[in-house]
């Protein structure tokens, strides 16, 4: 007797519920909650419009991440809002954060955008270096360097040293 294998079809709603919140939360730290939510929603809208193709992909979530990150990067190229997005996010959230977290938010906000994104994608989304590199149109070595630099900057800022 062979057991029937039931392959449950991936629904958009299920896909959304699984992937939306982690992605928004992670990108919010890098780019601000409002912009992150907008970018991620747009990515999911695009996924919904192409759901047949997207759901057939090996990793649909990777496609959505790519669309969202591309949108954030494109937006920051178009205007300078990206430069102060983290500051705005921090200001909006300051009442909900412990003092040490506020310091960290400020420190993250002072990172260049690519470093912020790399930090959030790597540490918050637990993406492997290779995928972070793909999302940022970069190389694994550069991503590692960005992460290293980011950590060093964070350490310098939080440690009060200019070295």
């Amino acid at each position: 007797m062979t057991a029937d294998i039931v392959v449950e079809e991936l629904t958009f709603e299920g896909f959304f519920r699984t992937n939306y919140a982690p992605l928004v939360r992670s990108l919010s730290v890098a780019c601000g909650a409002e912009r992150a939510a907008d970018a991620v929603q747009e990515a999911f809208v695009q996924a919904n419009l192409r759901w047949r193709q997207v759901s057939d992909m090996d990793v649909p979530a990777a496609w959505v991440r790519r669309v969202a990150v591309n949108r954030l990067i494109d937006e920051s190229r178009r205007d300078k809002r990206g430069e102060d997005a983290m500051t705005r996010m921090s200001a909006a959230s300051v009442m909900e954060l412990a003092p040490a977290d506020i310091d960290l938010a400020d420190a993250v906000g002072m990172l260049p955008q690519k470093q912020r994104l790399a930090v959030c994608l790597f540490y918050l989304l637990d993406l492997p270096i290779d995928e972070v590199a793909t999302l940022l149109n970069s190389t694994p070595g550069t991503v590692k360097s960005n992460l290293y630099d980011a950590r060093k900057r964070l350490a310098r800022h939080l440690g009060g040293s200019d070295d």
Partner: protein
Amino acid sequence: MTDPFAPPPPADDDDIIDEELDAEIEADRADAGAIGGLAGDSAPDQDFPDEGFGRRFDAEQLAVLGGQIGGSATAAMASIDRDVADSATGASDGGADGLLHPLDDANFGESLSDPALKQRLMRLAPRVSVEPALEATLAVANRRRWQRRAGTALSAAAVVIAALLLFRTGSSDPNSQTLSAGDPVTTTTTVGPADGTRLTPRTLDDSGATTSVYVPGTFVPGTYFPTFPTVPGGSSTTNTTTAPPTSTTPPTTARPSGEVKVSVGPASTSVAVGDRLSVQVEVENNTNAALFYVSGSSSCPQLARTTAATSAGAPVPGSGPGVAFVGEGAQIQDHLESNTFGPGWVLADPSKNTGVCTADSGITSIAAGQTGLATLSFDADAAPGGLPSSSLLIGTSFTYWPSSADASSNAANAKTVSSSSTVTWADSGVRTGNMSAVYNGVNTNPQVRAFLDGAEGAQERQFLSRIAFHAGFWEFRLSVAGSPATALLAKVDPSSGAIVVG
């Protein structure tokens, strides 16, 4: 003694609501607690021992990040810098597994792992509500789908209409057309005699007098236009000039010089379905570059297809820019009882609220020495249907000014010639429909009502600009800015007012 490396408590226990991330935080907190426990045994200003820290860099980094390591921050940073230098030179500090970030792909990724940093960063992540976001995302996606379908439909309609127009207008030179009833004709000989003869292609052989007016046109700065003469033979055609400008300041630019010939027709005649009523204006012997246009209107929306064509250069009809405006009926804005965009609009019965069918030739430029021609054509509706009025009035105006002058800012240089003609329907009353029922049906139709009042907004309502009678039904259409394409909003039975398509 408090744990110096323990992450600060969250400001709000409900700060993070995502269960998956909460679980990760708990796991990371356990990791950090282990690290903190080791580090916590270290006294302030005490160097971290290499042993006991699987990732010495992580511990140092954590200490510096938290700012809670006391006086060891400087030492930690010195250690980091030393390791960077070592990695660059290939040297090593001798630590077996605790080397700081060697910049090679094989090891660097491993050394970047930092659960404590991850935990700290997670505290910065805002709350996220999934279900409202899902609902909003699906709504946006559905709206995009609708817009795509509408755009595709409009594009297809534009192609069809363009093809129909091409088929209908045929060659750009009307003199080479094979004319039949209802074909458009644009030629200076289209104006028939003022004897009631209908202006249709069928009457092209009539050799009646042309109701043309020549306006002497040596326009000298500081003087004004001569009185517009009476149109010969046009018993009920009137022509007026605009009031002379009150300003006597000479214009700074030369005015166009030459003659203006206005051909208007028919005068006091009757029209039938398929007739085309044309108004043409020629600017002849122009000695200066100039701009001009013709605009016109008919009082009856049953002159459904209004076209305006302009041409510049040689006075050969249709040789210029061509059709500048093509409509399918009266502008429905004239049929709206409210001129303010917003809920509460109704489509008003044109038999009660006189509809106006307007056309504008668009601005045509002519160079010095050229002759320009502009034509407006009003087509009587080709389909049988309601004719709420038994007569109609066609009014036109002609305006031109030096090309170097702006029409709005240099009105003193503009000249306007106005003309009007009254015609009657040859078969008035034959096709009168129950227009009150038609408009009542439209205005009470839920879909139309939802459109007029709905959240789709004023932008779409601004495109609600066409009403026409086709194939036995009144059609209310949406037009697209800058395009002759229209999309059907509702099709209404002319007698009962029932919505056939809505």
